């Protein structure tokens, strides 16, 4: 048994070799490796599991290849609404946010809810307000959008396919 471990995911779906370009595949693997690097640095240095999962997820949130943070999918109205959660197995303390729009790293906002509020789950404008009041990094909502995600939304609307079809297709 190892004295520290880290496991990550970047989404699941109909991800098949024949649909994947070499460039997309290389970018995805690089992103996953970068997230493992971030978490490994914490854990190998004696840091906590909580710090490690936050560090790894922040890397994935900044990577436009994955559906979180920058690169998140669009709502029907063309906005990005982000959800995140974090939980500490030592105490079963937990924090979560839903429908947030301005925090660069939603996972860090979830952690702030856990550690700096009496609550577990904040949503929408109130969560955005809490984030700003607690000094977390704020970004223009346009930060989260990418042309590829916009194209996927346009495909969903134009072809009258379901969200399930689109999200399974793009993982």
């Amino acid at each position: 048994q190892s004295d520290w471990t880290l496991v990550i995911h970047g989404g699941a779906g109909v991800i098949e070799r024949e649909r994947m370009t070499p460039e997309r595949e290389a970018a995805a693997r690089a992103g996953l490796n970068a997230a493992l690097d971030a978490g490994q640095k914490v854990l190998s240095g004696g840091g906590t599991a909580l710090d490690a999962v936050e560090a790894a997820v922040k890397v994935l949130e900044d990577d436009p290849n994955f559906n979180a943070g920058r690169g998140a999918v669009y709502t029907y109205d063309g906005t990005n609404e982000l959800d995140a959660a974090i939980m500490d197995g030592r105490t079963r303390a937990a924090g979560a946010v839903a429908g947030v729009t301005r925090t660069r790293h939603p996972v860090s906002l979830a952690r702030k809810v856990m550690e700096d509020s009496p609550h577990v789950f904040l949503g929408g404008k109130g969560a955005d307000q809490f984030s700003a009041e607690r000094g977390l990094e704020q970004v223009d909502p346009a930060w989260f959008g990418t042309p590829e995600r916009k194209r996927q939304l346009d495909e969903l609307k134009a072809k009258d396919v379901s969200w399930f079809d689109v999200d399974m297709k793009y993982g």
Partner: protein
Amino acid sequence: TVGAVARDQAGHVAAATSTGGITGKRWGRIGDAPIIGAGTYADDRACAVSATGSGEFFIREGVAHEICARVRFAGETLKQAGDTVMAETKALGGSGGVILTGPRGEIAWSFNTPGMYRGHVSAGGKRVVAIYGDE
């Protein structure tokens, strides 16, 4: 949806999940990722779980907590519990996957889609990064 689970040198576990949700979502729809016990759960007595997939089904099944409960009360391995709960979720119509680690440093994942972006690393262990189901 992205996520991570970890076990540190002190034997504690944690889980985190982050997502943009589903393309074209309306009416303030929220999936399983931020729902404690559905898409995210961590308990030193059992395991840490992060999930990705069709959130409504993961919420109904209570996937993350259900896996930890099977490990804690039924003594199943992470892999057994993950596969069992994912099979039950698939039976309801859900698809996706979970990543798992435990307080003794176990590592597992389970998914019922053709692929899942995933990876793991551990002290003294081989790093694995994979995308397709047959990797």
